[in-house]
């Protein structure tokens, strides 16, 4: 009897793992005081309570959306979650309330799907991998044209982007050449600040905007940069051992959240230990 029960339990566990693997998380985001948001392969979003990892709600899949990126932001004392992706061959960013209700949709130019939000000026920064141009879209003017911020001439295929609101810069990773660029959003000037990053797939920034995390999909590493004398410098690299690392986001108490398309983990920066959690 015990054998049968054990067999059933193992089969169920294997089934749940297989189900998880087919629709695992490809992106995630968290900020202090907010929920943990996981973007799954099928475009749906799991909203989790950060400490217990209890699922609070699910944002359903948007028809035809090939998901790319997720960010959460607090705008006018309300939390929102933004999900980007491709609908057909057009880029779009969808805005939802923290409870998962659709709020707005922003079409992006030139198949741009990587983005971040400037909550102070209520701007959406998006980067096009086709033209390597960074654009700003006004969140308050629905249907307004994207405004060109910078053109990164040397880049091959810009990928993840993150906004440093203290220094008014966006960091942009070149997913093809493994280079990180810093773009001044007021002047449009840019400069490379790091190379040999493999294939940057996701960027995370610390709550004080002094630590930058870069997920390298190629080698499964997290590169950690610290802001020193006004410039980011690489201080550490953590080997995660994850073959298809897909996302990194800052977490509480010296941890980061990471995802690899199959599972979600919390990575301790002190012990470098990965702890998997259900979503």
């Amino acid at each position, binding site marked *: 009897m015990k054998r049968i029960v054990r067999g059933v339990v193992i089969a169920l566990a294997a089934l749940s793992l297989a189900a998880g693997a087919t629709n695992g998380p*490809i992106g995630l985001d968290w900020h202090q005081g907010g929920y943990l948001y996981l973007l799954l392969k099928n475009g749906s979003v799991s909203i989790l309570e950060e400490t217990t990892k209890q699922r609070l709600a699910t944002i359903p899949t948007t*028809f*035809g959306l*090939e998901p*790319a*990126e997720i960010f959460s932001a607090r705008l006018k004392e309300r939390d929102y979650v933004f999900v980007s992706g*491709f*609908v*057909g*061959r*057009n*880029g779009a960013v969808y805005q939802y309330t923290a409870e998962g209700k659709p709020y707005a949709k922003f079409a992006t130019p030139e*198949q741009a*799907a*990587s983005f971040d939000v400037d909550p102070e000026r209520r701007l959406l920064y998006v*980067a096009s*991998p*086709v033209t390597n141009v960074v654009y700003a879209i006004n969140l308050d003017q629905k249907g307004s044209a994207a405004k060109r911020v910078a053109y990164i001439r040397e880049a091959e*295929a*810009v*990928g*993840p982007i993150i906004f440093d609101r203290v220094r008014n810069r966006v960091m942009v990773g070149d*997913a*093809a050449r493994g280079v990180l660029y810093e773009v001044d959003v007021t002047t449009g000037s840019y400069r490379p600040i790091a190379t040999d990053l*493999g*294939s940057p*797939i996701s960027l995370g920034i610390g709550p004080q905007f002094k630590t930058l995390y870069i997920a390298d*999909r*190629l*080698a*499964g*590493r997290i590169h950690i940069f610290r802001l020193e004398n006004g410039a980011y410098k690489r201080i550490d690299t953590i*080997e995660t051992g994850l073959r298809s690392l*897909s996302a990194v986001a800052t977490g509480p108490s010296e941890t980061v959240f990471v995802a690899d398309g199959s599972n979600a983990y919390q990575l301790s920066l002190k012990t470098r230990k990965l702890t998997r959690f259900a979503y």
Partner: protein
Amino acid sequence: MKWNCLFALTAYLFLFAGEAVAVERVLVFDDVKKTDLQANFQSDCVATQPPSNFQKLQRVPTKSNAFFLYFDPSLIEPARFGKFFDYTFYVAVAGSNPPVWYSCGTQVYTQGAFLDRSETAHFTIKVGGAIDDGALDIPLHSIASRDFIEITSVTKPAKVDLSQSTGIELSLHNLLPDQDLLVEPSIQATASHPGYWVSTNNVKLEDAVSKEIIRIPPGESSLVRLRLEPNKIPTLLATLGSVKPDAAHENITAVVSYRSDLGGVSRTKPVNIVVRFTPSLVSLIVALLAGSLLGTLAAQFLPGTWKGFYAMGQRAARGIVFSFVAELFAMLLVALGSKFVFLQFDLDPWQFLPVLFIGFAISGGKEVLSYMGLMKQQNATAENA
């Protein structure tokens, strides 16, 4: 054998010197250049253990069998941010003991107005001082906005049978030369008259073979049913407004989501479907009976026609029989591709109002039609002709 051992030793020295994650240029692909397609490859390899499923992977030896290139096309995926595709290859040094393997993450950039297809790619493998080359066929995908699918309704306009709720029959045609198309069963439907349908949410395409992903082989077509359930009363009322056989009752825009097999990007194809409702057989019989009785009754009101209830009953029975015969003829003519023109009206014998009229005209007879001016008009037209 000696060479293989040397490869293995060299590779291991490299491996230990550079740690497990050191990125190396072990695999280099030549660009693929065709008139409509250009593809270039960027491979970065790291030493690894043999994958557990390597026996199931596609295996290509190099020309002098120094290396094997392993490839799983099902692992191809579009890059997250869209410009290139991620492929994973494995390089194995032939005969090495212990085994020497590299995992090569490869970014493939494609350009050109091509439809997704397979092409032969030439590659060179270099491990330590040993070099060898080979070629393999690999699927290449496009990020451009081109349609890989044609969608048409099997009948034009598409017939929706109000009695059976069988949905709308569509033909999906795969335009790709050598790759399957995978069509999502869930579609997005928008109706010009939402009230005609029970729901336009969660609409699905149904394939005779599978209810999951619909797979269409290259160059072939697949018949599917768009499951939309009509609201019977509003749709029956909608049929009253049109008499002509090809008139539209409704327009539906369906957006179908699909991708090419082996890692193609997701695409959508909107299609406009013109719909004509077909009432149930019971509705048509009711229409014919009602029309026939109405015609008989109308005839009784004409001056000098009333000859009692028995005569009226006889006339009604005769009218019903002849109406049925006329309706059957009309159906047969239309089914054979002909038209059913009655009193200069081109009638569809499958619609409620025309059937009511057939019953009325046949049972009412020429007295009623003349009284209404319809026969006179016809006679006058005939005389003029």
